[in-house]
């Protein structure tokens, strides 16, 4: 499989503080890759290293097949980048911004740019400083899409956007889906924003990658297993490590099996809970899987649970 982004033990420290720690990930070509993690997990630092804005302390990254520290104009002409704190030349009008950006990109598509501008409802003669936050983000996206980049990198693009603007934004991203070899890398602290968009998920926590998998593979191996037990039943002290967030309430037991296999997973439940009846296994949405994982990581992080 072709990878548009690859990192190997990518590390960045600020003084003694480690922001990104030995991050190894691969983003397949053609995917919409959701890079998820809580605020402060290292998402922005990672993205800045990918785009040669920050130097890695150790390790390496390659983007579009080029070492990230050697990225130059010919690569940046094929990468679109919108960040949460995008700086725009505020004194320009929307039309001036477009004219300012256009010469930098040989593949600039004027007609496409005009179509997007209409869709985004951006008045050409309005100064950027007079635009709302949502309009500014749309303007930033507009000038990052108009040259049909092969790779679109979005750093927390939805923060502070109202649902309507968020919807327009997503619609805009999907305008690029005609391109055959089109890849999106999108960071977010909120799975809800990208749940139906992503087909790959990477989760970063405290600078470390805790999971990287296709959405299809995740949904295939996660099942919520529920069963009915007698009221006096107790969960055994030692449960299989693949059982996440086990709960018992009255007559019912609920666990999330993270390595589900039809048949053998149910047999395992009967082994652990001999009086279990009516065992059901239901698939989880990406969102529910993320929430289960988030709870599990927190529970297993002693430094946080003590505070």
């Amino acid at each position, binding site marked *: 499989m072709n990878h548009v982004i690859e990192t190997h033990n990518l590390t960045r420290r600020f003084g003694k503080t480690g922001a990104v720690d030995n991050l190894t990930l691969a983003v397949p070509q053609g995917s*919409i890759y959701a890079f998820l993690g809580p605020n402060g997990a290292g998402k922005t630092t990672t993205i800045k290293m990918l785009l040669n804005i920050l130097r890695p302390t150790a390790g390496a990254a390659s983007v579009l097949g080029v070492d990230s520290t050697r990225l130059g104009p010919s690569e940046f002409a094929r990468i679109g980048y919108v960040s949460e704190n995008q700086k725009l030349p505020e004194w320009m009008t929307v039309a001036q911004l477009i004219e300012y950006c256009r010469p930098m990109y040989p593949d600039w598509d004027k007609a496409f740019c005009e179509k997007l501008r209409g869709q985004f409802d951006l008045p050409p003669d309005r100064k950027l400083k007079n635009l709302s936050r949502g309009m500014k983000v749309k303007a930033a996206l507009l000038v990052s899409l108009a040259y049909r980049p092969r790779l679109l990198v979005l750093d927390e693009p939805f923060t502070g956007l109202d649902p309507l603007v968020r919807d327009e934004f997503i619609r805009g991203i999907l305008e690029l*889906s005609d391109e055959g070899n089109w890849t999106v890398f999108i960071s977010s602290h909120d799975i809800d924003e990208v749940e139906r968009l992503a087909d790959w998920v990477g989760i970063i926590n405290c600078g470390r990658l805790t999971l990287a998998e296709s959405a299809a593979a995740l949904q295939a191996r996660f099942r919520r297993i529920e069963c009915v037990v007698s009221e006096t039943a107790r969960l055994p002290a030692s449960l299989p490590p693949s059982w996440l967030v086990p709960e018992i309430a009255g007559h019912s037991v609920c666990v999330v099996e993270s390595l589900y296999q039809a048949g053998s997973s149910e047999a395992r439940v009967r082994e652990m809970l001999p009086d279990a009846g009516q065992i059901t296994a239901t698939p989880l949405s990406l969102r529910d899987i993320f929430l289960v994982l988030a709870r599990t990581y927190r529970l297993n992080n002693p430094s946080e649970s003590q505070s």
Partner: protein
Amino acid sequence: MCPMITSTHMLPFQLQFKSGLPAYEQVVYSVKKAIIAGALKPGDRFPSVRVLSQELRINPNTAHKVVAALVNERLLDVKPGIGTLVADARPSTREQRRELLGDDVERVVVEAKQLQLDIEDVMQAVQQHWSRLS
């Protein structure tokens, strides 16, 4: 100045995403429902993968999977040079058509048992929906 009105292609079926179920299953289900209810008729044009993805704000690969599954179940026909149309060839036997329901019925039964309902409750609910859509 007068704001431009962004054009949206209307999809020929209705869908309100619910959290909890994979998007793929929800889209396939909505299309099947539209075909059975007659909102989508044989010969009707079905949206392309691109339009489906853009209008539903879903991953293009998911949209592709949806179309492939519906073509595979012979609910859609790909006509080269024309596009994707709603198929008129129905699965030949009643038995085959009944098989199409298998997964959905299983899900209803599982749900009903979890809610501690009995078969009469389920039958009554089925009856209600049946008359509503007839």
